């Protein structure tokens, strides 16, 4: 299967071009854009882990190692496209346009942070694994129904491929030729379960055969390759050629969440040692350096901007007005039912927790 679906790569881990075909696309501007976003979400991710350690937010889900997959894919979307992320894809959400302070609020258990954006079509991170894949199919079908040219992308992990909703989502999308990209980040683990025991198939991409759809296996540490693979898939989608299943082969550098201890089930030391070698951001840096695109000044500058942006967002998050118990009652239905209204009043009468 790895023969039938060779890993699509444009630059290797040392930053060398391995695929001449796309040389033209690797402009300095593009490289910088990708670099900026990867750096931005990496900084945010590190801050997320730190904030959790300091008890300033709840359990946090780090995505370090997956920046190329998340940034490369998110930047391929057009403004009106639809994004269906999981709990680990806030890097992608931020890149596509989610509000930084909202995302942080979410890690603080605040319902006000659940919706990533009021402008972009970014759905709240899906917690029940794979349940959002049929949504992406449906949102995409609705675009066809309305005769527009927009597409959808759904993010999910290797573990998600075992759920029935993965299967039903891809099957329905394939039958209706929905303009949707199923973007799998195969980071090798579903919490503690290695992908080799998640499935008996050699690759995830070969699952595309079950639906008669296009499948692409891409080096998920190569931001160019991801970016272009997703662009091409979106183009096929917009052209009425139906969905694509993309397997981005990547690595979760850290724990499943800040509540997880990966050393319980894998050789975390080994991963820590090889990190720099395979790091997607360093890979791009090597490429940029080799191709005269590296600009130390610019890097300093964006780092400062990013730091600023994130610190401002943290401040905003921490000075956000206290949670109002009413919001838990006010949005269950357009108009609260009498039961909800009564319960709300009762709670307010007792005073709730202050």
């Amino acid at each position, binding site marked *: 299967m790895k023969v039938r679906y060779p890993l699509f790569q444009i630059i290797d881990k040392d930053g060398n071009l391995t695929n001449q075909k796309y040389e033209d696309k690797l402009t300095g501007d593009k490289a910088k854009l990708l670099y900026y976003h990867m750096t931005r979400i990496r900084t945010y991710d590190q801050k997320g882990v730190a904030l959790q350690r300091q008890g300033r937010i709840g359990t946090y889900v780090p995505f370090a190692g997956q920046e190329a997959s998340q940034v490369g894919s998110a930047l391929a979307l057009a403004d009106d496209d639809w994004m269906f992320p999981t709990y680990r894809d806030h890097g992608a959400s931020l890149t596509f346009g989610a509000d930084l302070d909202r995302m942080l609020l979410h890690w603080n258990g605040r319902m006000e942070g659940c919706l990533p954006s009021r402008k972009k079509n970014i759905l709240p991170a899906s917690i029940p694994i794979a349940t959002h894949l049929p949504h992406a199919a449906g949102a995409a079908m609705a675009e066809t129904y309305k005769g527009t040219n927009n597409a959808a992308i759904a993010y999910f992990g290797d573990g998600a491929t075992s759920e029935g909703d993965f299967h039903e989502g891809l*099957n329905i999308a394939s039958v209706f030729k929905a303009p949707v990209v199923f973007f799998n980040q195969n980071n090798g683990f579903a919490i503690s379960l290695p992908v080799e025991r998640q499935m008996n198939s050699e690759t995830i991409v070969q699952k595309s055969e079950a639906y008669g759809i296009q499948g692409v296996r891409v080096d998920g540490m190569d931001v160019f390759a991801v970016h272009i693979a997703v662009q091409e898939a979106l183009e096929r989608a917009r052209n009425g050629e139906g969905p694509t299943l993309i397997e981005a082969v990547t690595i979760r550098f850290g724990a499943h969440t800040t509540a997880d201890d990966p050393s319980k089930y894998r050789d975390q030391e080994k991963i820590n040692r090889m990190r720099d070698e395979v790091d997607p951001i360093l890979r791009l840096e090597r490429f940029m350096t080799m191709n005269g695109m590296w600009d130390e000044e610019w890097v300093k500058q964006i780092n400062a901007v990013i730091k600023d942006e994130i610190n401002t967002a943290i401040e905003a998050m921490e000075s956000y007005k206290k949670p109002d118990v009413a919001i*838990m009652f006010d949005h*269950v239905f357009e108009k609260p039912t009498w039961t*909800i209204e009564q319960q709300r009043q009762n709670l307010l009468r007792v005073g709730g927790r202050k």
Partner: protein
Amino acid sequence: MVMSKELAESRSAVKTNSLTVIQAINNGLNVMLGKDKHTLILGEDVGKNGGVFRATDGLQEKFGENRVVDTPLSEAGFVGAAVGMAFNGLRPIVEIQFLGFIYPAFEQIATHVTRTRTRTLGHYNLQMVIRAPYGSGVRSPEIHSDSVEAFFAHMPGIKVVCPSNAYDAKGLLIAAIEDPDPVLFLEPMRLYRGKREDVPEAKYSVELGKGKLVEQGDDVTVLAWGAMMPVALTATEQMRQHGITCDVIDLRTLYPLDKDIISESVQKTGRVVIVHEGHETGGVGSEIISIINNTSFLYLRAPMERVTGFDVPVPLFALENDYLPTPERVSQAIRKVVNF
């Protein structure tokens, strides 16, 4: 018999047709597809076949394959796709072939259909209806006879509706489709092809969340819905002959329940019999009892009685009529609360 205001109106000037429940549903769908281009129907065999009960008969021919969509055999998939469509401004009406086949879509309903509005603080609302025939008594195979409204009445974020006659079927269905929130619309299979009723040809709606006083009496309040309405009415008719008169209320909406119509009646009669075909333990009846306990405690003159399906899997059809509440069991319960 009390004639409801709606019904009285409907019988005056407006053009009506004499329809069965299933025809009224078909008519309601027809009206709404015609009215709103964002409305579409999804489900198994709803297209050419017109649905296994013919609820969607003729609609694909009239509105096309984009509006009446035959889906793969995939309840989680097409309920999930409907959620995605509703995110994106469409108003899907999903048919589950039998209520017992809603279980594969349970996760979609429990985690997304019902929670999206709250999760996004109102940014996304899911204007969608899930229709499902339910109930026993038509000699169906296993799992085709479930009456599990209680699961959904316990899920915050979805309304649960169940008509018992053609007029309400169309009116409630239209109200459900127009409701900005998700509605589970339960259709009593056993009444699909029963009594015809005058149903206005035009669009009209019956308000969700409101029960209807179908028969008036003094001694007992009998509460039922859907396919149990005729059972309740047969029993109360018999009781009337023995000098016991009942308020019979068709609840019509199971979440939110019509607290006011219930308490008003109970505070008059002081005696309650609830009839439903779902399993007794944890059925909607238990919530009704709890509400009455809350609103009308001092008025009660006897323990409230439930006449329900048993705490057993709905049996195959040789025993289905033993599983289902009968007029005899209802009468027995009425006598019990009267003689307490």
